């Protein structure tokens, strides 16, 4: 757990209040939703220009940490994660390629684009036994509460029984108030 927490500190200096922690079938899952003030401070401190920080503030950032404590390979594939609102409507995740397109349109320097990319949870990744992965997952802010269903295929070829983690009652903070 120590290395897992150290990894999370790589991505965020924020407090761990109102966080979600779930362990299922050898996979530790951590999630925390950031306030606009937190993302503003986080990315400003990493040298992103104001125009990029302002763009980031329009989105809702979930910080996710994963630790594969099993003896098998666990796969991360954000394309298979489902975010839905209370009415079952899909909530849009903003992928790294979409951010790259935004940064290019806003003429954000390559160094800032690279730094931003390293703070994001990888789009796809095999997680080896005892490996940790962490980063941010941005979504278009929904009006009310929403649910995340995250599936993690297992096995060297990803054909093993998937691990499924559901997190209900999530909400994006407004006016700097984390729920």
């Amino acid at each position, binding site marked *: 757990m120590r290395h897992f927490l150290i990894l999370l500190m*790589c991505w965020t200096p924020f407090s761990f209040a109102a966080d979600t922690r779930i362990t299922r079938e050898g996979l530790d899952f951590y999630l925390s939703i950031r306030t606009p003030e937190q993302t503003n401070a986080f990315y400003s*401190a990493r040298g992103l220009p104001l125009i990029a920080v302002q763009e980031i503030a329009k989105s809702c950032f979930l910080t996710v940490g994963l630790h594969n404590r099993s003896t098998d390979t666990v796969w991360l594939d954000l394309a298979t994660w489902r975010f839905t609102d209370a009415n079952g409507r899909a909530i849009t995740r903003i992928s790294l390629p979409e951010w790259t397109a935004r940064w290019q349109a806003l003429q954000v320097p390559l160094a800032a684009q690279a*730094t931003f990319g390293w703070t994001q949870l990888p789009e796809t990744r095999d997680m080896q036994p005892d*490996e940790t992965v*962490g980063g941010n997952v941005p979504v278009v802010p929904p009006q009310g509460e929403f649910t995340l269903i995250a599936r993690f295929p297992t096995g060297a070829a990803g054909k093993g029984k998937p691990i499924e983690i559901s997190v209900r009652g999530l909400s994006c903070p407004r006016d700097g108030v984390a729920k």
Partner: protein
Amino acid sequence: MKPAALLLIGLLAIGLAQAAEVKPPPGLLKLDGRPAPALQLADMDGKTVNLAQLKGRWVLVHFWASWCGPCRREMPTLPKLINAFPPERLSVLLVNTAESDDEVFTFLASVSPELTTFMDRDGQVTERWQPRGLPSTFFVDPQGRLRYQALGGRDWGSGAYLAFLRELTKAK
């Protein structure tokens, strides 16, 4: 020579080859031996390095950033590793990912003043290497091929890693 004798010799050769391979400590991911991507960068004083010119020795390529917590903890352990090997046997190249000279200078001065780093100013060299995160360290063999990647940070001065690297860098 009889087929049975040939088979025996073959099995013996395979066994010896396996025995010769050094077992890595936990946290090192074995790679497939593909050629290392190009790496040609300058440090803050303008001194350049070209990985292609370092063939014939093992090279550790270490990607880092000062904003990354595990990088900050790992950095002070690197001098012990660097000082344990002559550079013609094992060279360690630090590559800072997408930070300014001011940020890097301030950070290194406070943590490990003896360390120097090459600067990937726009982050594009790091992108080409595709590390699994920061920090990340690649082991490049004397033929310029990727052999291992360290997952996350660690104490490079620990006995397990130094012993592994001593064994690894014995055989070219």
